[in-house]
Every structure is written in C-alpha cells, then in structure tokens.
C-alpha cells in the first residue's frame, strides 16, 4: 500500500520549532542538525572522493600524450596511461562531457587507438592512492562511480570496459608495482561495464579487505582487430568513496584540485605550458654572481609540499635541458652549464648551484618536480 502524507511541518511535540518544513516548490528545510545513523564516517563527510582530478580538470604536463608501453603520467594529472605491446594510442583532453543538469563537467579524458592500427595491447588508465588516503577504507564497502562512453568504432569485445579496484597491504607503493600486481598482498575486485556512444554513469561497489592499507584503480580497454576512425573511450566524473551508494560527484574548486595535484607534480612554468617550452615567463632567479665569481647555491621553494622528495628536471629559458639562463648587464644568454646538480631535495624545495661569467649576473631556471607514486 502506498500513501501520501500531505503536510507542511513535522515537529516534535516537545520542540518549540519545526524539525522539518516542506514548501510548495519541493524544498525541505531542516530545523537543526541532520544525523544519519548507519553511515560510515567517511561517507557521511564532505571530501568523500578519494580520487584526485576525477573530473579531468587539471592538465599540467600537456593536453595530449602518445601512449607508450611504459607506465607514465603523460597528460591529465594523477592519471597514468599506457598501452601494452606496440603502443598506438593517444590520450587527450576532450570537451565531450555528460550534459545532465547538475552533473556537468568541463573536460573528459579521451583515449583513442590510432586509426588503422592493428596493435591490440591492453590500453590502461590508472590511479594509485596514497596510504594516507586509503587506510580508513579497510573493511568497508567502497563504491567507484564514473561517467564513460565510447567512440563510434569502439572495438572491445561486446563494447566492454573493465574496471578494477586494487587492494594492497604496503605503504605508498608505486604505480609501476600496482600495474605489475606487485603490491604487497595485492588483490583486486573487478567488473566489466558496457559502453555505448552515449554518456552513462556506472557504479561498482566492492568490499575493501580489512587488511588493506593502500587502494588503487584502473580501467582496461582491450582493443580487437584493426582500429576504425574512432576506436576510443571517454571518461570523467570519477569518484571513489566509502559506502555502498554512489553519491553525486563531489565537485572540487579548481584551486584546491590544482594544489592536490601539485603534491605529486609541479613546475615553474605557467599552467598549460609544457615543461621544456622556450619561455622566460615564470622562470626562477635563484643565484647572483659578482665579478665573474661562481655563484653559490640558491633556494627554490615548491608551491605545495610534495608527497616525497621529488625527482627534479630543469631547463633554461630556451628549453635546453639541464642548462640555465644567465642574465647580466650585457643581456641574457641561455645554454649555460651550472657548476653542479640540484641538491638538498626535500618536500618543500631544493637548492641549485649556478654559474658565473664575467661581470655581475643572475642565474635563472625552470623546473619540474615529480613525486608521483
């Protein structure tokens, strides 16, 4: 039997104000706190989503990347993409997105096998979480949700896309080891969803083993035959949360999400400028030499504290790798070899020796720092 309760106010008999007020527009107004019992702590809070850059908003390195058979973070931040055997595919930023009101996105990640390619290695997109963002999921239901669609010539058998959740027992183990099923105690839960050329939201709930200390995920697109003109997948709105319900995608502000990504990768170049680009915009002055003396090391501070001491690469203003720019009264020059390598690399910065030439000069460089898993 079903029935409709017609009322505008629900109020405890001992309360002086309404507990719940219902208006004619369908709005519900609570009188005080909402307490939901039976919900795991993590699923009842904001910042539910454990995935960073789930809406494919941040692309510091590049907006397109030719996949290789190495596990590389090539374009969308925090997302590793690769293709087994002979790689013949590209990952790129797409503006094709779901159009459901209230579930809008600006970008998706498109991964397309090269047209006419006969290479059929698995095409994988993956993200590994830090232990600090994983440990409290142990023993809980965990729900992965994402929006996806395929291109008109999607070649996977039965239009399937495999989704995996990985469970590990170590601490901050690498993406490479996750992809090689080499995390300590690594197990997985997986499912296969069926893509169409229209956007769909998929959800997958699994139980995170009680011994889990690190979580990761991946999709596997297994191409077949010869690639047609649009043998591709599109993904956005990825969320991994505690509980058995896929809640609406938790939209992050771009400022927060960029900072989240910079914990793993950051650079001196302006956002959208690929490392190694010839530009002086944002280049960092780190040392001064007087009367031709060799400069001592200068300090370079990171914008955000990094996950671990990062790997450093650097360029001069002309894009020459492992070179620095020198500026003085007679002008600016590139392609100078510094007197040493980066040193004292820590979570918050590093030092770098410079180089002196005649007169009084300043040393400059661009850098990229990677502390990815």
């Amino acid at each position, binding site marked *: 039997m079903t029935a409709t309760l017609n009322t505008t106010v629900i109020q405890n008999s001992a309360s002086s104000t309404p507990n719940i007020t219902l208006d004619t527009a369908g709005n519900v107004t609570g009188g005080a706190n909402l307490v939901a019992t039976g919900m795991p702590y993590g699923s009842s809070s904001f910042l539910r989503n454990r995935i960073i850059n789930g809406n494919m908003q941040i692309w510091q390195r590049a907006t397109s990347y030719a996949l290789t058979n190495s596990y590389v973070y090539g374009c969308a931040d925090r997302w590793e993409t690769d293709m087994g055997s002979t790689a013949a595919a590209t990952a790129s930023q797409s503006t094709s997105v779901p159009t459901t009101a209230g579930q809008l996105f600006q970008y998706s990640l498109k991964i397309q096998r090269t047209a006419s390619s006969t290479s059929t290695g698995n095409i994988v997109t993956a993200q590994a979480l830090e232990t600090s963002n994983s440990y409290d999921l142990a023993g809980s239901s965990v729900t992965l949700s994402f929006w996806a669609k395929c291109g008109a010539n999607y070649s996977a058998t039965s239009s399937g896309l495999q989704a995996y959740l990985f469970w590990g027992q170590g601490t901050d183990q690498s993406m490479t080891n996750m992809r090689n099923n080499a995390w300590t105690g690594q197990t997985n839960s997986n499912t296969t969803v069926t893509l169409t050329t229209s956007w769909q939201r998929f959800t997958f709930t699994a139980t995170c083993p009680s011994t889990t200390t690190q979580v990761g995920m991946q999709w596997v697109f297994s191409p077949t035959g010869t690639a047609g003109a649009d043998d591709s997948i599109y993904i956005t709105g990825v969320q991994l949360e505690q509980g058995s319900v896929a809640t609406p995608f938790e939209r992050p502000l771009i400022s927060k999400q960029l900072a989240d990504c910079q914990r793993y990768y950051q650079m001196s170049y302006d956002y959208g400028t690929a490392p190694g680009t010839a530009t002086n915009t944002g280049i960092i002055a780190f040392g001064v030499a007087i009367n031709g003396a060799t400069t001592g090391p200068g300090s370079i501070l990171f914008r955000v504290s990094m996950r671990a*001491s990062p790997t450093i690469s650097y360029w001069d203003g002309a894009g020459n*790798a492992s070179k620095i720019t020198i500026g003085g009264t007679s002008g600016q020059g590139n392609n100078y070899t510094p007197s040493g390598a980066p040193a004292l690399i820590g979570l918050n910065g590093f030092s770098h020796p410079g180089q002196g030439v005649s007169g009084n000069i300043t040393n400059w460089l661009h850098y990229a720092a990677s*502390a990815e898993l």
Partner: protein
Amino acid sequence: MYTNAQYITENGVNTIISVEINGVPSFVPLDPANTDYAAIMQLVAEGKLTIGAAE
C-alpha cells in the same frame, strides 16, 4: 625508461642520481619514498641497470 644513470656526490658522499627518464635528464634523490629511486634500485638489483660512479 631509466638510462644513463650516474651518482653525483657531495663531499665524497653519493647524494643524487643523475638519470634520463624517458629521455628527460632528471635528478633523483636517494629517498626510498621517491618511486623513481625505488624503481632504479629494483632495476639495479635485477641486473637491468647500472649506476655509474661519480666523476
């Protein structure tokens, strides 16, 4: 992925590994939490990579 690896020393102590990562000259701190360092040491242990001594 990792090629041309060589130690860099400071005051006679190894402090950094200079290495090309996918062709990009890079400098890796000797920090086990750095996954490049962990991967390099794993390749060394497997005999697939040699780190040259500092010059």
